[in-house]
């Protein structure tokens, strides 16, 4: 697959600094060599590629925007976006999980006290341990603040009861960042606790069977009188929802970046197919309709990429408009990139429907990006609220 060979048409290096081009190069190389050859097998056999991710962590991909004093790489949100976009060309599902892992480590790094940072972050940055983000419940998806998992204070512990749904990595990961209710209803009653696999009362549901994202297991996480030390709480009681949302701002950029990578790879695959496949005595690439289609795909991809990178910069700078920009970028990029991947599949004709061809996996893997980390409907809610309040 030609995805590591950067061609001018995809323009993913445009406007980057020398350093960023180097980061991107390592990520592209790693994706082409360590991920792309295995993405189909990981999908088919539902393999969680622990060793490959640990190799990636050795290069610094385990805690990309986490501070170096606890093992992170200390890079910017834009550097992170560039890296996830490139890695995603090798395997979107695995990269998406890595981005969730990175988000969790950042939350502990940013909102944890010194003792918590030192306890959790180093082994997470090296991916000796893996993390999961636990917000969604069977009864609360888009209405996240209505979550019900309760955490009752008992001495110097919290006792948790409830369950989380659709948790990426659930059951296979070691560290769980859990949003739970310590106070009254609504967002202000929510706190953030860090749990570890093996804690009594922490169990997992069955592994879900999914259309895509098959290189990461998805399970319910169940708390039955699960006892958690107060020392595992990140930040103050009642700060949990804010922590969760701040994590998601970055998470949205990361997921959008994964969509960009899948679209980039799909455009290259479509390009290759159009050059090679002949009908009516000519390569498909001589057909103006398809040429125009390819041009539109590349243009939409670039537009999406610029929105994502712009949002990354805003978040890095702590600008007031960052949250809205992240929502807009996530909405636009995930929708556009799904369209691009889907169009690339169409250009493959019947072959696009076969699992021997990678394009269908990119389509299946990024479909969920329009749903999680805040549905694209919720993204519209956030943008509308911002427009109408002003």
């Amino acid at each position, binding site marked *: 697959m030609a995805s*590591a*060979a950067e061609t001018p048409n995809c323009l993913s290096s445009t406007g980057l600094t020398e350093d960023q081009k*180097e980061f991107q190069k390592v990520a592209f190389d790693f994706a082409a060599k360590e991920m792309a050859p295995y993405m189909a097998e990981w999908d088919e056999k539902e393999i969680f590629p622990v060793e490959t991710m640990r190799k990636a962590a050795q*290069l610094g991909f385990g805690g990309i925007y986490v501070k*170096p004093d606890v093992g992170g790489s200390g890079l910017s949100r834009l550097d992170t976006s560039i890296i996830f976009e490139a890695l995603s060309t090798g395997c979107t599902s695995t990269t998406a999980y890595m981005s969730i892992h990175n988000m969790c480590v950042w939350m502990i790094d940013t909102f944890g006290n010194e003792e918590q940072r030192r306890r959790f972050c180093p082994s997470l940055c090296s991916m000796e341990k893996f993390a999961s983000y636990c917000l969604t419940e069977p009864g609360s998806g888009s209405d996240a603040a209505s979550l019900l998992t309760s955490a009752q204070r008992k001495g110097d512990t919290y006792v948790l009861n409830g369950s989380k749904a659709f948790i990426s990595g659930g059951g296979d990961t070691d560290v769980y960042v859990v949003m739970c209710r310590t106070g009254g209803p609504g967002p202000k009653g929510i706190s953030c606790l860090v749990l570890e696999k093996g804690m009594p009362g922490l169990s997992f549901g069955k592994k879900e069977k999914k259309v895509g994202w098959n290189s990461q297991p998805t399970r319910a996480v169940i708390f039955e009188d699960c006892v958690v030390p107060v020392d595992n709480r990140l930040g103050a009681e009642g700060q949990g929802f804010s922590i969760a949302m701040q994590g998601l701002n970055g998470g949205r950029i990361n997921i959008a970046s994964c969509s960009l990578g899948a679209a980039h790879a799909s455009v290259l695959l479509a390009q290759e197919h159009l050059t090679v496949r002949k009908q009516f005595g000519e390569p498909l690439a001589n057909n103006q309709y398809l040429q125009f289609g390819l041009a539109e795909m590349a243009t939409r991809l670039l537009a999406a990429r610029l929105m994502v990178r712009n949002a990354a910069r805003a978040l890095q700078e702590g600008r007031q408009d960052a949250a809205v920009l992240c929502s807009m970028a996530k909405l636009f990029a995930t929708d556009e990139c799904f369209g691009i991947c889907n169009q690339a599949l169409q250009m493959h004709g019947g072959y696009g429907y076969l699992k021997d061809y990678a394009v269908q996996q990119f389509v299946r893997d990024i479909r969920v990006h329009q749903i999680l980390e805040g549905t694209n409907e919720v993204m519209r809610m956030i943008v509308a609220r911002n427009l109408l309040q002003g």
Partner: protein
Amino acid sequence: MAALRVLVGVKRVIDFAVKVRVAPGGAAVQTQGVKHSLNPFCEIALEEAVRLREAGAAAEVVVATLGTKASQETLRTALAMGADRAVLAELAEGAAAGPREVAVALAALARRLQPQLVLLGKQAIDDDCNQTGQILAAILDWPQGTFASRVSLEPGAVQVQREVDGGLETLRLRLPAVLTADLRLNEPRYATLPNIMKAKKKPLEVVPAADLGVPAGPPRLRLLQLQEPPPRAGGEKVESVESLLGKLRHAGRI
């Protein structure tokens, strides 16, 4: 041994995965806007040098290249992989160089830097010349160990296992020596994010090629013509081995 310096010569080439096209005119290949990378055999040579330093057998790894300003990106990749400092022997934009010119530049650098070991890739994947290391050794009058698949340093000497037509040959060369790396010498590392950032602070010196004695004007080796291979013709299925042999004989293949 502690003061041992290794000089690694590298080349910026078109990336192996690119579909190369002949440029109009037939005398060159299209390079405009095409992805370039560090030559894979040079990468192997560099990896070996960095491993020698990490093992304590060498003290410093200097990476050098003869090229235009664009070659700086290749040197930065080499620094990110672990070289300590870099030298660009700079050619003017549009100027070309062949193995002889590169060897002249590296020889001048070797006289300046006094390395005990010069490591190169066995050949570049663009021209496949497989000459630079050999010419360099001749200019310096140093022993050479080409197609190295294993390297181990000893006091004052280096033992090299070479991949040759008959199998494997092991030589012991007195230092200083020139070695060229073959595919199985090692598996190069990826640059890590922290190393890419550290590379920014490492020295990168730019020296005009003329200062190193590289003659101006066209290279010694002139490329006369390039053409793409003939398009693939259809194949043919036969029913028996006899029929196959007959067809091959008829086509003059056996």
